[in-house]
């Protein structure tokens, strides 16, 4: 070890750099090899894309300009300002960079092989996955919740806000869940509705012994939890919020060996059904014993299998042999022999996330009609209403309630169960959402779906008073977009995005107003689709359906930064960029 006391100077640096000992041949070889490597990658990638008949992704940088050239030919098409504004807007360049990286053929091929090698050889996970024992995988965000700072620690909440702002991920951060919970309790209480919070424990809490040997002492109802959880729930109870902590209830079987899927973020069907029964029991305690002619529900056992969302997030090669599919038995809930459907007129509303959807939304990989709401309904023996959005337990479901087409949802309700993943307490934004009043009284579906226009009532918008019906074809211009999550950034491989469209021409169908909220597919199988890249000023020809008529995408994760609670959303079934 040398001990140099003389400080380094700029002059000495220059002298050292000027006296490099390298033969001319080595210098030339090293220089050219490096240049060839860094030039070869983009050339090969561009060449491969051209061979497939695609335009090289890297040229996407100029899209706003080329679109503008196209639209300048049309009357009112806009000039150069708009595309330049797009390019210079915060986030556009990052989005473009992400798009180039995601489309990199070399990266797509090499990354899984390297990840698999690291995983097999060194037990490495990645920034989303923590590798447990005996083939168990855990979602990093859940482990962070468990071991991280108290979720109600003031300085931690301040740090989260600051980081959101500095990284520009959210300029209006709301990391503290308490105001949102209290506000929603008040919204419910104003309507005479009881609110029941249902935090779903994280896999790392319930399967601790599979995560770390140091958690082997925990079992049964002795469940490790975030340092601040108890304080949060005490405060919430003190302010009148009721909470169901399923791991503390009497029905919770001590020392049960497995409650979660080995390689998925979510619960096993058996545990979900156990929680559904406990929830139904709590609902019964709070619900007046109203008689009803409820349909008979039956269960049909089915075997379902999948690799699990965590294997997908680990991003191994498609032909990987490290993990096999995991098979589970689920009970599909049938009503008169048909798949169970939510009932908007029910007195019970379940707000949920992917824990509610895992066995009811096929895109999550575990089939349909056997989800959490279905089993609550079965355990109650009566229909329930449900709004469940993947990854949106903290704020998204309440935002849905605030939308015009859902303003009747709270009318007939006596109890709302707000299910969310407990890890959201330390990771999500808990926005305050004020829910406007809907129609005056609980109405029958026929009245809501009347095809005749009716006058706007107090508390309604034009859109909510006259809900859209049937398909619509139009040309419109993108006004505002939402920030679509990066592929593989969440356990959900699909995502919709909300876009505000200014209508230019209606080609067919009926439309009230000039602006439209349109939901596009933004990501499927962790690949961005055109919807993810639309920018203000883009002109689109769209074929739309009212979103409420598109049932199979309703629970899909949604990127929505628009805070638009005026327009009823449509869903784009066909979209074409108009140049």
């Amino acid at each position, binding site marked *: 070890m040398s001990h*140099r006391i003389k400080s380094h100077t700029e002059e000495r640096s220059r002298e050292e750099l000027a006296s490099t000992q390298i033969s001319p041949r080595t210098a030339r070889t090293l220089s050219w090899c490096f*240049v060839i490597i860094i030039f070869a990658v983009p050339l090969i990638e561009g060449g491969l894309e051209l061979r497939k008949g695609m335009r090289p992704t890297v040229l996407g940088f100029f899209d706003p300009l080329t679109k503008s050239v196209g639209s300048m030919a049309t009357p009112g098409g806009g000039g150069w300002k708009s595309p330049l504004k797009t390019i*210079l807007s915060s986030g556009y360049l990052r989005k473009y*960079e992400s798009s180039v990286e995601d489309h990199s053929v070399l990266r797509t091929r090499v990354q899984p092989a390297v990840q698999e090698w690291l995983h097999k050889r060194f037990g490495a996970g990645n920034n989303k996955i923590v590798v447990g024992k005996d083939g168990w995988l855990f979602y990093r965000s859940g482990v962070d919740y468990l071991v991280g700072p108290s979720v109600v620690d003031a300085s931690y909440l301040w740090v989260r806000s600051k980081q959101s702002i500095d990284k520009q991920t959210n300029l209006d951060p709301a990391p503290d869940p308490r105001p949102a919970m209290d506000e929603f309790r008040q919204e419910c209480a104003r309507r005479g509705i009881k609110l029941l919070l249902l935090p779903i424990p994280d896999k790392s809490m319930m399967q601790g012994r599979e995560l770390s040997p140091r958690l082997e002492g925990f079992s049964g109802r002795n469940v490790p939890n975030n340092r601040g959880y108890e304080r949060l729930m005490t405060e919430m109870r003190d302010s009148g919020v009721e909470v169901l902590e399923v791991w503390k209830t009497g029905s919770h079987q001590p020392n049960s060996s497995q409650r979660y899927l080995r390689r998925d973020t979510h619960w096993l069907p058996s545990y979900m059904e156990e929680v559904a029964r406990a929830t139904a029991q709590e609902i019964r305690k709070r619900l007046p014993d109203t008689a009803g002619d409820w349909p008979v529900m039956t269960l049909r056992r089915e075997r379902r299998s999948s690799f699990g969302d965590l294997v997908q997030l680990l991003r191994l090669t498609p032909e990987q042999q490290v993990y096999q599919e995991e098979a589970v038995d689920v009970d599909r809930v049938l009503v008169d022999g048909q798949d169970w459907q939510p009932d908007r007129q029910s007195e019970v509303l379940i707000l949920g996330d992917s824990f509610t959807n895992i066995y009811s939304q096929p895109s999550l990989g575990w089939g349909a009609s056997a989800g959490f709401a279905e089993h609550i309904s079965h355990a109650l023996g009566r229909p329930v209403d449900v709004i469940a959005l993947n990854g949106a337990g903290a704020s998204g479901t309440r935002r849905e309630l605030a939308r015009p087409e859902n303003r009747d949802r709270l009318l007939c309700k006596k109890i709302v169960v707000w299910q969310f993943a407990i890890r959201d307490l330390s990771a999500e934004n808990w926005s305050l959402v004020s829910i406007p009043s809907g129609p005056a009284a609980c109405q029958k579906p026929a009245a809501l779906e009347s095809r005749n226009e009716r006058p706007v009532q107090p508390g309604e918008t034009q859109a909510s008073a006259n809900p859209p019906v049937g398909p619509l074809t139009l040309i419109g211009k993108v006004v505002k977009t939402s920030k679509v999550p990066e592929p593989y950034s969440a356990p959900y491989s699909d995502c919709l995005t909300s876009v505000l469209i200014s209508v230019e021409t209606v080609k067919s169908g009926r439309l009230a107003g000039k602006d439209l909220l349109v939901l596009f597919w933004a990501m499927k199988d962790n690949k961005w689709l055109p919807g993810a890249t639309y920018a203000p000023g883009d002109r689109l020809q769209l074929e739309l359906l009212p979103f409420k008529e598109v049932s199979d995408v309703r629970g899909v994760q949604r990127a929505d930064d628009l805070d638009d609670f005026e327009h009823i959303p449509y869903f784009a079934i066909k979209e074409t960029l108009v140049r």
Partner: protein
Amino acid sequence: MVFSSHFFIFYFLPVVLLLNYSLPFRLLSLTLTLLSYAFYGWLNPAWVLLMLLSSYIDYFCGIGLVKFGGLPLGGADLPLLPKDQPRNRWQKLTLAVSMVTNLSIIGFFKYYDFGATTINALARAFGWGSAEIGVLHIALPIGISFYTFQSMSYAIDVYRGEARAMKNPIDFQLFVALFPHQIAGPIIRYRTVAEQIRSRSFSYEKFARGVSFFCLGMAKKIILANPMGDITDAAFTASSLSWFDAWYGLFAYAFQIYFDFSAYSDMAVGLGLMLGFCFMKNFDDPYRAVNITDFWRRWHISLSTWLRDYLYIPLGGNQGSKGRTYANLMTVMLLGGLWHGASWNFVVWGGIHGLMLSLDRIRGRDGFYDRLPTPLRVLITFLVVNISWVFFRAETFGQTLEYLASLFSLSNVEKSTGAVSALLYTPYHVLMFVSCAVTVWFLPQVWDFTQRITPSKAAACLVLFMASVALLWTQSLNPFLYFQF
């Protein structure tokens, strides 16, 4: 944009090199300036305006210093201000404009919220009314501390007569914005690059050395620093830790910050060489230092020399009484700490180093400490530096105290946080931890390794580069730590 990103390496850098080696020299300043602005504005283009503002104020201050000195503005080069003549009132005012503007920019963006929060907290504590100063939640423009210091050094150098004012505004913008060092240094003094902006040489030797710096810097960042970042993040966000986990997490941070920051500097030096520039060495085996004075000769050298030349010496340096010297050291280190970020933690971090520097002076040479075996002194210095890193890394003062308590087994270890071991001790992370220790204490640093480049070393550089790129694709975006400063 980040050097260690797919887009930078395979798209931005090829374009830069292509233009740098195909355009005539007279167009290079403008081209590199525009490319540097694109690089800087990548995350938020609006921040370029701020950089332009800072640049143009200093540019005009430079011209003003010459003009108010009664010197001619004609000719290819502006004249040097005579060193031995006192400056007049207008020149002093011009320098003050530069200083005040730059310090205001950095003060507003970096310290406004911190100041407002502190004042509000004090007001609440002393019951001085309920009216609070509004906190603006301002996003911190990346690299602001680096480029404002660089820009300021220009006006000071011109004022002191140590450098000529620049006539061509594009050349001056290039000095401030030049992308290799723009966001996280090394902090370049105007007088050392002014000549290179006007004329510099290109050669295969220079380019090849630059390539080897870039490849090895990339390897340090991707292979060593990022896995250490995983350990650090887990340790520093855990609500409680055992003493062993805490020390392991802290050493991982020591490795992370060194490999991350020195990697950035190596890549910056490498990119500079590829473009014909020579930047200064920023790290010189800092964890082999035998005391804190030695550490500061090896750690972030461009900042420590900047603080020495533009703050410590103007304050009087060591020319006054002993007490005055200690006070100067303390002032410089406290401000140096605050330069890193708007938090009391950074102030305390600076204070610890100021105190240790003063103790080094009080102790003098040839005392008991200096007779200890070198490895023991290196270990003691490393431990002191590590304790100070707790203040540097922890997000809040409360977290700092908790972490320090964990280090010395003074905190209650909650059983639930045993789960943190799943994050800390994967075989991969343990292997990388050991590799970091070996690299720090037993392998040559990049500057020495690349002093003599043999074919096998050249091959090793390329292999490490390709391995780093392959690993990069498995990692999420990992900006350099010093971007936040």
